[in-house]
């Protein structure tokens, strides 16, 4: 148990170091985020039509969805076969997938929070219950990373993995996205927190299911190169 914990810790550290050293990856994602949000800002201010609140909410989550797909997609796809082969010889499959999920969770949390700040700067802030909204962002970051990490490892095994990532991932993420939008709608309108309780519970259940199935299934996938 301790050795697995150590292994996970080392692997997460390795991922973070790699990300910090290859600055282009992180700065690329940030630029992607900024330009998408700016695109939303420009196109919506073009017709002088103000963004109403439901649209604000949905647009935010759609942008986050696309950022998540493209940033998590690279977690397995960017690595060369030799690199993966090397990991297989030194680590457990479980610790590889867990460390990837943790790292993608941290990365997504960073991107989602930065995205939120840029988004409210450009498109205004109608959110009334900010702590709940940020808690929801946290759930969203973990949820995206839990579902998309496994999808990314599946897609990386096939050819044209970029398209596969989207078509395999989107149907699976839809229920989660619906729940996230519902909770953030509650946060925006500043409703009583107990009303979002059901959704948060279901959301956590989905995340736990996604993580456990990833851990169970990844060992069958990892050596098939």
């Amino acid at each position, binding site marked *: 148990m301790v050795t697995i914990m150590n292994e996970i810790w080392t692997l997460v550290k390795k991922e973070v170091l790699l990300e910090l050293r290859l600055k282009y990856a992180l700065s690329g994602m940030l630029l992607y985020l900024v330009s998408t949000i700016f695109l939303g800002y420009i196109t919506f201010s073009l017709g002088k039509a103000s963004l109403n609140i439901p649209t604000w909410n949905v647009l935010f989550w759609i942008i986050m969805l696309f950022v998540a797909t493209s940033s998590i997609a690279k977690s397995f796809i960017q690595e060369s076969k030799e690199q993966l082969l090397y990991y297989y010889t030194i680590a457990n499959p479980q610790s590889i997938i867990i460390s990837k999920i943790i790292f993608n969770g941290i990365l997504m949390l960073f991107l989602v929070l930065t995205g939120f700040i840029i988004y409210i700067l450009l498109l205004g802030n109608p959110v009334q219950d900010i702590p709940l909204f940020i808690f929801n962002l946290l759930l969203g970051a973990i949820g995206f990373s839990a*579902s998309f990490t*496994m*999808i990314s490892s*599946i897609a990386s*095994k*096939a*050819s*044209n993995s970029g398209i*596969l990532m989207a*078509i*395999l991932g*989107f*149907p*699976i993420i*839809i*229920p989660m996205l*619906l729940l996230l939008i519902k909770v953030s709608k509650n946060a925006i309108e500043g409703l009583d927190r107990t009303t979002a309780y*059901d959704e948060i519970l*279901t959301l956590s259940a*989905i995340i736990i*299911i*996604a993580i456990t*199935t*990833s851990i169970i*299934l990844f060992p*069958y*996938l990892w050596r*098939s190169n």
Partner: protein
Amino acid sequence: MIYGFLIEVPHLPILNETVRNLFFHVAIWFAMFILLIVSVVYSIKYLKTSNVKMDIIASEFATMGIVFGLLGITTGSVWARFTWGDWWVNDPKLNATTIALLIYMAYFVLRSSIEDAQQKGRISAVYNIFAFAAAVPLIFILPRLTDSLHPGNGGNPGFSSYDLDNNLRTVFYPAVIGWTLLGVWFANLRIRIKKLSLVVDEYQLN
């Protein structure tokens, strides 16, 4: 099947004769879920044994599941036209089944994008199980949390509570079994063709 067109049905307001669609629409959904569950079971078996035949069975049952899903949507659409007044309504159950169909179509795109048979089997089996575990329970749970136009959801009573009288039951349960067996039979035909072509391939290789 013929009996389904002929028996006396309770004439309820709105539903009228369309209640006969119960034998098609509802029975097809039941059959679809049974077929998809069989597919997932064989995917798990494939991961355990790495036997190509298991993969063939899993994929063919998923194909039949999609066919039944499309049939279910078509019959449901016709039924919706006459009871709710429109071909397609924004209903959580409809959305959920659309998601399920998208997932299984993605499953086939994934299959077609991998060349190697062993690898194809393993990767698509992993996706099949992952998708089933992550999304299919939600199709049952989410519509029950929100309002739906379907009976048994959001304050609408289920069929069984007042109008599924015993005459309907005598056709409905055999209809479920019949549609399922029909699906199994079709799937079996396709599985046998695939197995034979596998044998032929091996023969030619030798």
